[in-house]
């Protein structure tokens, strides 16, 4: 959009030696995850109105769990420029992902966009602060899977049960599961009664971090409670510990190994027995 005279207030983000942002947006398509996308933030100042209770500073940077994205650490994103903020402070970087399902992380604001009446905005923002849920109205949580090069985000409220969630996760991460008996089989039936099968029969263990910061096994608590308390999900690879067999007999050894691996991964001391796995 040359010639609009926005250059002074416009933020352009990208790799050094920079792409033209517009060009990048148009040709972005199916980029490899290593590249970062240029996100053009238009900060118009002064903004006539700002909602006080909007979280202007929510910058989501997604570090790769395993492989590294070349993303520099991002600082806070601001949007909607009130007079008090200088436009120079923000940069938001996200990874461009081939999967169109992935919601964009940056929380930029533009004046009057999206075009929703203030009346409506005020109602919804009041209601979400009242609710005080950790992940907000949509219960968005990051999902990492060991071995996957990038994270995903899901809205837990979109699903009615563990079963629905597991199907969705399966779909999301199916490209990363190792061919064979593990992956898809492992994601099915993530309900309470089938956890035993899951643990003994698959490489993947779904865990989550709850409001208290503890890592829990998915499926222990009723669905609603899980949605309320889940802050992020991690799909652990059981074989991170050792190579696994899938027979019953190995179950116990596997459990111990998983436990060790898990403790190690979470940084919890081995003496902490308030542990999270159990095999029913």
């Amino acid at each position, binding site marked *: 959009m040359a010639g609009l*005279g926005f250059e002074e207030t416009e933020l352009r983000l990208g790799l050094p030696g920079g792409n033209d942002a517009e060009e990048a947006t*148009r040709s972005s398509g199916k980029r490899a995850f290593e590249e970062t996308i240029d996100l053009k933030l238009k900060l118009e100042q002064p903004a006539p109105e700002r909602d006080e209770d909007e979280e202007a500073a929510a910058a989501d940077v997604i570090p790769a769990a395993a492989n590294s994205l070349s993303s520099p650490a991002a600082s806070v994103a601001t949007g909607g420029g009130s007079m008090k903020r200088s436009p120079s402070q923000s940069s938001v970087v996200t990874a461009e992902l081939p999967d169109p399902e992935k919601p964009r992380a940056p929380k930029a604001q533009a004046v009057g966009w999206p075009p929703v009446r203030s009346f409506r905005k005020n109602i919804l923002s009041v209601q979400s602060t009242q609710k005080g849920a950790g992940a907000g109205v949509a219960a968005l949580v990051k999902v990492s899977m060991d071995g996957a090069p990038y994270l995903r985000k899901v809205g837990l409220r979109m699903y009615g049960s563990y079963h629905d969630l597991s199907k969705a996760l399966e779909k999301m991460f199916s490209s990363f599961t190792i061919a064979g008996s593990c992956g898809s089989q492992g994601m099915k039936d993530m309900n309470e009664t089938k956890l035993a099968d899951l643990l003994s029969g698959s490489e993947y263990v779904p865990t989550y971090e709850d409001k208290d910061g503890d890592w829990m096994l998915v499926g222990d608590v009723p669905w609603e409670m899980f949605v309320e308390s889940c802050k992020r999900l991690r799909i652990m690879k059981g074989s991170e510990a050792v190579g696994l067999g899938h027979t019953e007999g190995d179950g116990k050894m596997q459990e111990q190994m998983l436990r060790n691996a898990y403790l190690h991964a979470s940084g919890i001391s081995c003496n902490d027995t308030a542990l999270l796995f159990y095999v029913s």
Partner: protein
Amino acid sequence: MTYFPEEVVEHIFSFLPSHSDRNTVSLVCKVWYEIERLSRRSVFVGNCYAVRPEQVVRRFPNVRALTVKGKPHFADFNLVPPDWGGYAGPWIEAAARSCVGLEELRMKRMVVSDESLELLARSFPRFKALVLISCEGFSTEGLADIASHCKHLRELDLQENDVEDRGPRWLSSFPDSCTSLVSLNFACIKGEVDSASLERLVAKSPNLRSLRLNRAVSVDTLSKILLRTPNLEDLGTGNLTEEFQTESYLRLTNALEKCKMLRSLSGFWDASPACVPFIYPLCHQLTGLNLSYTPTLEYSDLTKMISRCVKLQRLWVLDCISDKGLQVVASSCKDLQELRVFPSDFYVAGYSAVTEEGLVAISSGCRKLTSLLYFCHQMTNEALLTIAKNCPNFIRFRLCILEPRKPDATTNQPLDEGFGAIVRECKGLRRLSISGLLTDKVFMYIGKYAKQLEMLSIAFAGDSDEGMMHIMNGCKNLRKLEIRDSPFGDGALLGNVAKYETMRSLWMSSCNVTLKGCEILASKMPMLNVEIMNELDGSCEMEENSVDPSRVEKLYVYRTTAGARDDAPNFVKIL
């Protein structure tokens, strides 16, 4: 026809349904002009600055119903600075002087003061209906005056206004003699109401057909009220939070079941999922459902309710419903005519559980769809083509992809072809809002095919002046054009100046028009008001780091017989 007595001609005119028809007959000859103007009962003023209030009331002294609209549409999204204008005062004062028979007043996006409401209440002895939509500037004290003095009040309908809360006394101000209420909507009132007053009011209003409560009204009060209104057709609930015992909800269900005429439901303030089953017995008879104020209901609650609403014609929801939920809507609500899906996340590239898949499902299940407002995460050309084929009867099609300039999600192409299909297939399209990545090509399609189009909203779209020119030259019925953040400049602004006389208004913000261009327009077209709004006061020197000083940030052009308005604030310059 001139040999007929006036009463006969007048009677013939009374069959003319539309304002434009009546306007036309008034041009035939002086006699007809006189007959028409004295017998006109209903006047619609689409832009309060297009004509002086005195002119209107002088020409139509016997008007009974007056509708006036103020600020431009983009004021809804905070693009119009506060204090821009749109004052109701002059209209109410003029009517109070010359049209004492006034019975109905409808206003949208106007600034209404308590003093004006008091004047209104005292000036029109037969006043029956007040409808205020997206207005501001008044408080509950003004409403108290309306309640106290309008003895024949039938309708008090307050939609999404910004009302200052000065206490609940307004509701108690209806005198005992007032038994004529048919419609009461105070959903936008923020404060408490006195339940006893409300119950008393309802008890003495046997004609009540439409009642929309605010958040302060409890489940118990609602149940008591409903027992008194078996003929209620439209209900906006109070709050439906979980705090109450199941008994309260059982009472509610019993009361609701008695309302056999109930067709439309809204409100659901703070509704908890637990309350949803209590509405089930009603669902089969509903034609209208508004759940768009309720982020606390998730997709499963929503779908359980909606799947029972087999007669639904109008549905407003939040995007928490997700694509999957929209599939349920598509398979359950075969009579659906209007759908609005609002975002629950307001950031520019915010998350939305709704994509093109949901809309495709809707289009294939709900073939009667004519009106759509859809906020979504992404769209594809293929989806739009399918939607256009499935639903060629769209009259209103408003699509908002949350991220500006987002291309087709699978091909990364612009969405020109998709919207092109919409305008090609939907020959009756009257209103269109476009979004996503769009080049001048989409405007070529719109100009070529959208012959019935009356209102077009453009944001972050197009490449050059050519885009806008396609619209100006092609859309014969265009009345309102609003554009933001698009690269159209003076060339487009001045490319077809005669067109503006046939339109109500043009809005351009964050485009490429310059002061020079606007000055040329103003000089060529004296019947237009060319309003310029800059962030900086026009008289100051421009600051060093600002944008090009001749660039016009906000432009509002409208035809008028009233000349430049005298109530413009400092930041508005009228050329």
